[in-house]
């Protein structure tokens, strides 16, 4: 086993900053819906702020439907923001006109989650990579070939696979192509959306190692989105835990696992690891009787309260369900922030 990486985080500069990001989806219902304006609003992302420094990985973890993917897509402007600001490399890119935004696209890319849907099934791998290398500028054919060879070597893809179609590749290979495509434009910052989900464990490990190797080689920064707290911890320098559109806990990785302060983080962690850890957790955290709730609409007050074991343990205190007292992220020391009225 290697020694832990000693990265001095404090000296490098901020590459991406997100301030109070909000994304509300609207759902129209009813008679002749197209002509009516009263809509039901689903806050997929409800005020998220964080920053990522150069050469750093920020992990974003949460259950499906908590809005983590939406955060990634909103940063890359694949979905319009409702409000908030995105600052990339010191420049506010929130309202950048489309043609100016192209410069940002060169530096910021995404690795998509769905293996089968992310690659055009009717294009060969070489054509997919070629398209990516020729988006900006018009390199000569020799240059393109050289670049494709270089990319496939970087992501450890067999050159023979370049003539295949996506559906002929295995899951791991598809993922590698996805990574190569993101690197092809010369991105420095990658949003990796669940890069290890839907992969077998043995392949998962390959991809994690590959992403970490690439980060070292190419000085990349990642926003690493996953539902698997284990992988997130392993990959990231800091971790944010999201619940229903909000960050409920954020801090340096290691602290999140070793010393979680939010009950939700604790539950996420204990639901993942082997039973030994489960048994070591306080009894009320592993009780099985908390139900399943409507994910679409957060409860008033603390949005985690309906599922919260502490809330039940403490006899359902009013502060947790008071609509005016939604807990804010509060620093509890060592840049560790928690949004909870009764942190562990």
């Amino acid at each position, binding site marked *: *086993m290697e020694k832990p990486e000693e990265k001095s985080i404090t000296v490098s500069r901020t590459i991406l900053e997100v301030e109070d990001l909000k994304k509300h989806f609207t759902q129209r219902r009813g008679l002749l819906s197209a002509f009516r304006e009263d809509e039901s609003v689903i806050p997929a992302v409800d005020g998220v702020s964080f920053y990522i420094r150069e050469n750093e990985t920020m992990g974003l973890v949460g259950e499906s439907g908590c809005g983590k993917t939406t955060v990634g897509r909103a940063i890359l402007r694949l979905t319009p923001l409702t409000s908030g600001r995105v600052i990339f490399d010191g420049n506010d890119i929130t309202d950048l006109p489309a043609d100016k935004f192209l410069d940002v696209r060169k530096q910021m890319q995404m690795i998509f989650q769905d293996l089968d849907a992310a690659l055009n099934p009717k294009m060969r791998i070489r054509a997919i990579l070629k398209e990516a290398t020729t988006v900006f500028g018009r390199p000569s054919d020799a240059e393109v070939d050289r670049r494709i060879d270089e990319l496939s070597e970087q992501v450890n893809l067999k050159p023979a696979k370049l003539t295949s179609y996506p559906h002929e590749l295995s899951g791991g290979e598809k993922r590698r192509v996805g990574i190569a495509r993101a690197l092809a434009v010369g991105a420095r910052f990658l949003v990796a959306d669940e890069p290890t989900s839907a992969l*077998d*464990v043995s392949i*998962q*490990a390959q991809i994690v190692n590959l992403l970490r190797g690439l980060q070292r080689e190419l000085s990349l920064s990642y926003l690493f989105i996953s539902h698997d707290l284990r992988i997130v*911890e*392993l990959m990231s320098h800091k971790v944010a835990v999201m619940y229903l559109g909000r960050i409920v806990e954020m801090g340096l990785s290691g602290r999140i696992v070793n010393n979680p302060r939010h009950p939700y983080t604790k539950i996420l962690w204990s*639901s993942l690891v082997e039973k030994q850890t489960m048994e070591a957790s306080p009894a009320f955290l592993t009780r099985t*009787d908390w139900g399943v709730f409507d994910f679409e609409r957060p409860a008033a007050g603390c949005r985690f309260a309906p599922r919260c074991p502490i809330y039940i343990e403490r006899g359902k205190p009013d502060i947790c369900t008071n609509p005016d007292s939604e807990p804010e992220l509060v620093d509890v020391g060592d840049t560790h922030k928690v949004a909870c009225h009764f942190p562990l």
Partner: protein
Amino acid sequence: MSENTVLKIQDLRTYFFSRSKQVFIRSVDGVDLQVNRGETLGIVGESGSGKSVTALSVTGLVTAEPGVITGTIEFTSNGVTKNLLQGLEDFVTFETVDGRIMTLEKDNRGWQKNVDRLVHRIRGQEISMIFQNPRVSMNPFMTIGKQITESIMLNTAIKNAAEATDKARYWLEQVKIDSPNLRLENFPYGLSGGMCQRAMIAMALSSEPSLLIADEPTTGLDSTIQSKIVDLLVELKEQVGVTTMLISHDINIISRLADNVAVMYGGSVMESGPVERILAKDDEYKHPYTAALLESIPDEEHIKLKGHLKAIEGDVLDTVNIPDGCRFYSRCNRVHAKIEDKCRHTEPDLREISEGRLIRCWLYLN
């Protein structure tokens, strides 16, 4: 075959023919398994290892062609043993070239009719199944209540609708779904994945089967929901005590639920034995594949130290091009000069090396 055996699978082969590539996909390629009464057999393996197809073969649910081509599946209940693949040879003829099936003829429709007759009153009544992706595995056009009631009326002595509804409510309570009365009237649409899976488990148990096949029951659910479902299954195992064949790629789930484990790779069983020995890191016998699989899962220590993960190099075995020798040879890190020739050219047998402990590896044979 001991009296305690509920299900015994021998030399099961289920192939699919890819018309586009003109090749056989050897999805299940000589599987031997045994499930004993009251125990939970965990089958663990990566995608494409043939574990789900094995389960579908047992209940005659393989729809792609040519499907099951060889083997016996002996199912015992109430003291009667029945081969669920009775007469398979009459429907299939094949020729082998260098020990590999290259030409095959099968009367698929005749076989489907035959297998439907063989599993009649067994499928559903004696063997229940739980599938992955509960939200699409429940009929979206029927209420949860109707679906469970249908299962009860088809498979138990209860033929009265009102009684069956009461029974359905009882089972929904057993699986700890919240507000079971309301759920009876609900359609699967609008229920969360966890709730649908609970309903599905209730439906599977409601026919009071002697064998439950759970095919990736937690895949596609959130980890918090997953752990709840596993908790539920653990609890039901204690209360109901149904014999179970549990299929999963997640070793943690297997380790919590199974008594015995079979590890599958590339369509065949690589090793099997009691769970505490297979999944222990320091057992004296250890298939290199299982060892590598266990190592590639990040454990707590890894995570804390941010160590390099030990990945298994190479790709999951392509079940079209099954090698002559050991299936794991190309990815194996424990081949040494003495056995290399055998590993490359001859497939090892699945051999019992100690009580209840079977392994398919040249390291431990001879």
